[in-house]
């Protein structure tokens, strides 16, 4: 009887070989990332499903635009870093991109990333690869985070390039998504249509899943489109001077907040008055505070009170 191993070569089963291959690190903005949900592939065979849960199949996420992924590559500003867990054995970081923020964790099973976080300065530009994790303590509240694998400090040029790369890949998804939406096709017919239009089979599958599931699938795409556009405009390559002035004003407002000991919280109206009296226009103060709130550098413990994250 012939045995399959007769030539003495290592026989690697196909399922295992798929695991040996490294997963692609997808480029995705925080806005799209935090709106992701767990991918539940419809499997007719319940036993097969149970088996696949046991084995090391990666934990796949699906974005509202149909991107299916597990690993991400992110470049952004680290704005917060905390040691959490019962014995402070876990690092929690916030990494901000032009559309929002990623929550990143690194624990004892991510030694490389943990060592990195133990020395990194806040704020700085960092590049990071990691696996997407999803935590749903109760129905309706979902936390999407990144479990860091490797990280490094990079320069602003690399960050800008990442923003443009990520925008490019997001725009490609948006275009495929709108194309799918306006085609009127569904399910397998839609996948076939998208493949013919040059969309990858993975994205075609993802889009068809999302369109089946969402009640108003176009809604998120519209918001993301605006967000990406604003993010790109904020890069501001040509207007180096005005960007510089903006940075100065932002620094000034931030300095004023520190001066007024906003780490304990200050009254917003009083702060605006103080800033205006020093010659900063009210709208600029509002804008800076808004951007500080969105980047997570300060928050509102109560309405009307702002507190700096120290």
């Amino acid at each position, binding site marked *: 009887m012939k045995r399959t191993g007769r030539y003495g070569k290592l026989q690697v089963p196909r399922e295992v070989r798929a695991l040996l291959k490294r997963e692609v*690190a997808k480029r995705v903005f925080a806005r799209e990332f935090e709106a992701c949900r767990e991918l539940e592939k419809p499997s007719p065979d319940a036993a097969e499903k149970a088996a696949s849960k046991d084995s090391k199949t990666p934990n796949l996420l699906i974005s509202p635009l149909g991107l299916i992924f597990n690993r991400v590559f992110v470049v952004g500003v680290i704005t917060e870093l905390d040691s959490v867990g019962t014995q402070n054995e876990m690092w929690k970081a916030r990494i901000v991109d032009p559309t929002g923020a990623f929550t990143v964790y690194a624990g004892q099973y991510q030694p490389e990333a943990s060592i990195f976080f133990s020395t990194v300065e806040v704020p700085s530009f960092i590049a990071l690869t990691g696996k997407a994790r999803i935590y749903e303590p109760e129905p309706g509240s979902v936390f999407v985070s990144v479990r860091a694998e*490797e990280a490094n400090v990079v320069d602003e040029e690399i960050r800008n390039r990442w923003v443009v*790369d990520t925008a*490019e890949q997001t725009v490609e998804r948006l275009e495929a998504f709108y194309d799918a939406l306006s085609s009127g096709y569904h399910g397998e017919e839609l996948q076939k249509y998208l493949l013919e239009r040059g969309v990858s089979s993975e994205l075609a599958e993802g889009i068809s899943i999302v369109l089946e599931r969402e009640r108003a699938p176009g809604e998120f795409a519209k918001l993301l489109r605006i967000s990406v556009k604003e993010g790109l405009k904020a890069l501001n390559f040509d207007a180096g001077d005005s960007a510089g002035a903006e940075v100065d004003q932002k620094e000034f407002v931030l300095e004023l907040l520190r001066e007024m000991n906003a780490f304990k919280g200050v009254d917003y109206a009083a702060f605006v008055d103080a800033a205006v009296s020093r010659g900063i226009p009210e709208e600029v103060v509002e804008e800076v505070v808004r951007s500080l709130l969105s980047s997570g550098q300060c928050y509102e413990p109560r309405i009307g009170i702002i507190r700096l994250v120290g």
Partner: protein
Amino acid sequence: MDEKIAPHLEELTRALGDLEKSGIRAEFEKLLAFRVPPEVAKESILRKFGGKQRVLKVKDLSANLKGFEITGRVLDIGEKAIRPQEGAPQDRPSRLYTGVLADETGSVMFSSWKVLHCSVGDAINVRNAYTRLWQNRVKLSIGEQSTVSKVPDSGLPPISEISKSPTKKLLEVGAADFSVGTIACVLQLSHREVMVRGKQSRVISGVLADETGRLPFTAWTELPGVDIGSIVRIEEAQVRMFRGMPSVNILSGTKVSPVGGEEAKKLAFTFDSVRKDPSPLKIEDIAARDGMFDIAAAGNVVSVRPGSGIISRCPECGRAVQKGSCRVHGKVEGIRDMRIKAVLDDGTGTMSVMFSRELAEIIYGKTLEEAEELMFSDISKDAVYEDLRRILTGRYLAVRGNSSLNEYGISFVAESAWVPEDDLAVRVVELLHRLGSDETDGQVREIAGSEGGEGFA
């Protein structure tokens, strides 16, 4: 007992055909003799002999597939007597049938341990076939568990058509091609002398190019009138796989003729256009091919792999020395070298890139000597590796070289590397254009708002 197993036997017969003839019945009973429950025995038999067969085309074949079904036309068949192995049972087949099977998607070599009663031009259907890698290419194997039947009306193109070597662009040439024809420009060309079976022969080797890509070629015959810059039509050239990359082999049966004048003007390429440096491909597209020659890609270094940094090489064979020994030549005095293995990722795909010492020194920014100094000044044995990670992780790199596909994904050997410089401002303008004009924003916001309201209502 028999009553219990009868329904299982019936089911097996339905799925697999005559059990007695194929020896499946005997195998089933052997499992029962080992006290395997009949239900489980049936399942493992079905798994082994493949109740449900995937139907594949030649182009879908890859190494180490098993249990699939394929239909093709026999282009060539021959038999070989195999010397029986010593101590092997006498009933072992001692004849091996080899040949070429083709369908409309390509052709593949096959070998069969079963006696094949067919001749050139017949269409055959093979069930429970498997594949092996042989001389760097996929080979279809027909084993004792396979069933072969002649198909009178296969719907396959006739032999005259199927045996014609297809005309392809260089990018399309792959492991599923046995022989091809192409029109391409000669980009490089050199002569060398080699010893073939004790005879001195002259070989021409070089590089062909068209608008889709480049491929190496070797000619075992003279190519009169062909020089760098010539555009040639090549017919019936053999495709060989070397290091996972296809290469075009020009043999005595291959026709090479010049393409000139009007016809050359109609081509999508000229010598000048193919001479330009290759522009970066998406890594996703590189992963779709078995192997690619002289291509470029760009992405972020997402990981520097262990084994990067200073290594010691065997002076005899160049293999990396581990624990003071070469795995072929034993204890050796190693020669110090530097290399980098990095994972490059562009968001569409990921590949493992190998940088030689010369390139490693450029992208690392330190020479071997400087790295050695670091190694000796630090107590950590991974000082250089850690330094490499600190310098390279996250960085943008563009590389040019050859790719090949293996079970771990794409493996890329870099011939050159640089930091890609593209104008981000231009890309931003283009992206903003693709995202649509500002005027539509307010409108979009409104729609998004109203739809959101409906969602909550």
